[in-house]
């Protein structure tokens, strides 16, 4: 190498990766919201409320973490909410019929996973764009669930099973432990395994990924199956938390999950984002609702405030990202 070429190569300015910087800014945004709420409401900073927020965020996070992987591959899964509903209803029935929570949990996870796998098949083998495939799946699942439940509600589950969603261990709610575990697993999977790397590569350019020898179809199947299985997990948490299930529980879960992923900095164009960001996204959304409840904001204003926060969060993200570049 000549000297002149060497001059052109300047060492990187920061040892932090772009992802780390973005996550940092997002954490800052969440803390900012916390600070505002702490000033406005006395009860916000209590330990009880913080655990409360974490526990509420966990449900969104479970759904959103699987979804993050899908979005990383430049896909989308609109069926997660409907998947939660169906899985919860089927798992609930199994627990009722067999009396075995373990069997119910397995069924719920399996049901979610199978639905996810079917999404994956539509996207890979049938080559239907994921947005449309999972939108279709959403309606198919709704139809199935409506038919299966016939307007009934399942309720009343064994106390042991209910511990998963509402129990405590050493003063912390059990869903919070689960949240930490899956945050860890998700982050490790995405950042520290070659599968994770391959998923980022697929999202960034699927054609190039295929020609680089990545088994694109298999990885996509995996990703959709994981997303479905996480929806299955969410359904179990839901079931044990609310002690009941009905056909329409999924409807209000999908858009918040997608919003959490996007606020978390994952790009819909694929290849950019982190699971940790999604966690913060879920946290921000939960904080906003928690704050509005604590401050008794009128119901009429809640969608408006949420909408503004979503835009603000992403805009701040864009700002900081530009500056960081």
């Amino acid at each position, binding site marked *: 190498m000549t000297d002149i070429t060497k001059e052109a190569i300047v060492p990187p300015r920061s040892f932090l990766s772009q992802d780390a910087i973005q996550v940092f800014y997002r954490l800052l945004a969440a803390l900012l919201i916390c600070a505002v709420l702490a000033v406005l409401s006395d009860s916000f900073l209590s330990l009880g409320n913080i655990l409360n927020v974490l526990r509420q965020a966990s449900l969104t996070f479970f759904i959103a973490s699987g979804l993050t992987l899908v979005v990383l591959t430049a896909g989308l899964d609109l069926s997660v909410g409907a998947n939660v509903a169906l899985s919860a209803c089927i798992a609930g029935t199994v627990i009722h019929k067999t009396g075995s929570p373990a069997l119910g949990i397995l069924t719920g996870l399996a049901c979610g996973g199978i639905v996810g796998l079917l999404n994956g098949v539509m996207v890979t083998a049938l080559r239907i764009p994921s947005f449309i495939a999972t939108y279709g799946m959403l309606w198919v699942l709704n139809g199935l669930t409506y038919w299966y439940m016939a307007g009934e509600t399942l309720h009343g589950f064994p106390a042991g099973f209910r511990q998963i969603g509402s129990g405590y261990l050493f003063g912390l709610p059990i869903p919070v432990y689960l949240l930490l575990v899956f945050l860890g697993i998700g982050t490790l999977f995405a950042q520290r395994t070659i599968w994770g790397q391959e998923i980022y590569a697929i999202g960034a350019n699927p054609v190039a990924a295929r020609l680089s*020898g990545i088994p694109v179809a298999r990885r996509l199947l995996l990703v959709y199956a994981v997303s479905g299985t996480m929806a299955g997990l969410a359904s179990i948490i839901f079931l044990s938390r609310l002690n009941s299930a009905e056909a329409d529980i999924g409807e209000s879960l999908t858009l918040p999950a997608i919003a959490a992923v996007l606020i978390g900095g994952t790009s819909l164009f694929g290849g950019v984002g982190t699971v940790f960001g999604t966690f913060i996204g879920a946290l921000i959304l939960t904080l906003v609702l928690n704050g509005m409840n604590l401050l008794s904001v009128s119901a009429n204003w809640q969608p408006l405030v949420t909408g503004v926060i979503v835009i603000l969060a992403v805009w701040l993200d864009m700002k900081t990202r530009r500056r960081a570049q």
Partner: protein
Amino acid sequence: MSDALPIEVTSPTPLLELRGISKEFPGVKALDDVSFAVFPGEVHMLLGENGAGKSSLMKVLCGAYRADAGEFYYKGEKVAIGSAADAQKLGIAVIFQEFSLVPHLDIAQNIFLGREPKGRIPGTIDRSKILADAKRVLGTIGFDIDPSTIVDKLGVAQQQMVEIAKAISQNARILVMDEPTAALSDRETELLFALIARLKADGVSIVYISHRMAEVFALGDRITVLRDGRRIDGVRPADVTPDQLVRMMVGRTVDMTYPRNFADKPGEVLLQVKGLSSSTGISDINIEVRRGEIVGLCGLVGSGRSEVARAIFGADPVSSGEIIFDGKTISGEPDLAARRGIALIPESRKSEGLALLRSVSDNLVVSALRKLFPSGLFDQRSAQRTSDGLIRQLRIATPSARQTVGLLSGGNQQKVVIGKWLAAGSKLFIFDEPTRGIDIGAKSEIFALIDRLVAEGAAALMISSEQVEICHVCDRAYVMREGRIAGHLTRNELTEENIVRLGMHHA
């Protein structure tokens, strides 16, 4: 600007002059105090290594980039070029290295984008006029095609011709062409050269960027050489030899004969293709590649060479025939071929080769993940180390392995595409136009690298439109015509003449 241009090649005042242009990107000083002048009616060659700043200088010239420092003079008067519109007003048109066509509009709409003839109803387009105008422009460059064809349906070469038509249609006084022939076949290249001659006669100035020495001497009136963002020299073709030019570009001597250590005895058969056909238009392909060999695959553009490469790699479905690699039949997706030890360096780096938004390092290790991290656990540091090695080995000009690959210059991107298979430990390398857009220095290094790979027991199948290269480096070559193998040339028979003869239609 309405006054007629003096058609005077030796006019003392330059038509356009750039003085002291500097442009810095994070971590890269792309242009450093560069001055550059274009005289009326000349073809001005702009040369330099990959990443030297040629494209950047032209983007400054046409208003796509805003320079950090520097001044512009048009016919001796100071002007400002702050946007593409400013440049257009001065009569500057550009044929970019990356296409600027809209895929789902037709040829006519693309040529006149933003300058559509107005229809009777306000806001509408005069459809018959735009088609007629397009037909006329296409006629002047000798490109015979229906102007209402949708651009997405065109091949690379045809798109390049539309790009040229688009620039011509602006009646520009200064026409910038950034590696226009990289995607053209011989026939279109001839058309282009004829066109350049005509434009020159009309007093149009042309700035021409190319890595092909032959073109430099065939077309150029003057040469400016850039190196690492600085202007090194300006010369006339008559006053220099190719060797001297190359030394100016790279700052050292480069052996341009691509030396090869041909093995005395070819190794065992590594790849055997029997009666391969595919719906992409190739049929009954029979090819054999042995260890230690570089086998060429030549033919005209569109003769199906890329399709053969893709079919062997599993990228296109095979309708009949057999591919035996390393003693075993393979059939399936590219991941299978890759795992068995086949590497494909595809022809289109942007759409097929790179994840443009990811880092250089990510792109360099992506094919080698399984080999580098057999446990399945990925480690960023070790990936970085591997890529640093490749960056050094391939002399990829980048501020760091963390740089986004889409920000590299065209040639350096191509090096990354090649580099990613080096770490994977493949046995057979299929190169599809590996040197497209690569500078002369890098070219000889890449050939040296391929030579080393095959000497160590690998093999290569190489597609190239530059027959000189094939003749220099290949042990033997297959020539394709209309989707079939038209002939086979041994080392002794391998001449440009023979390749053309076998590859011609109705030979």
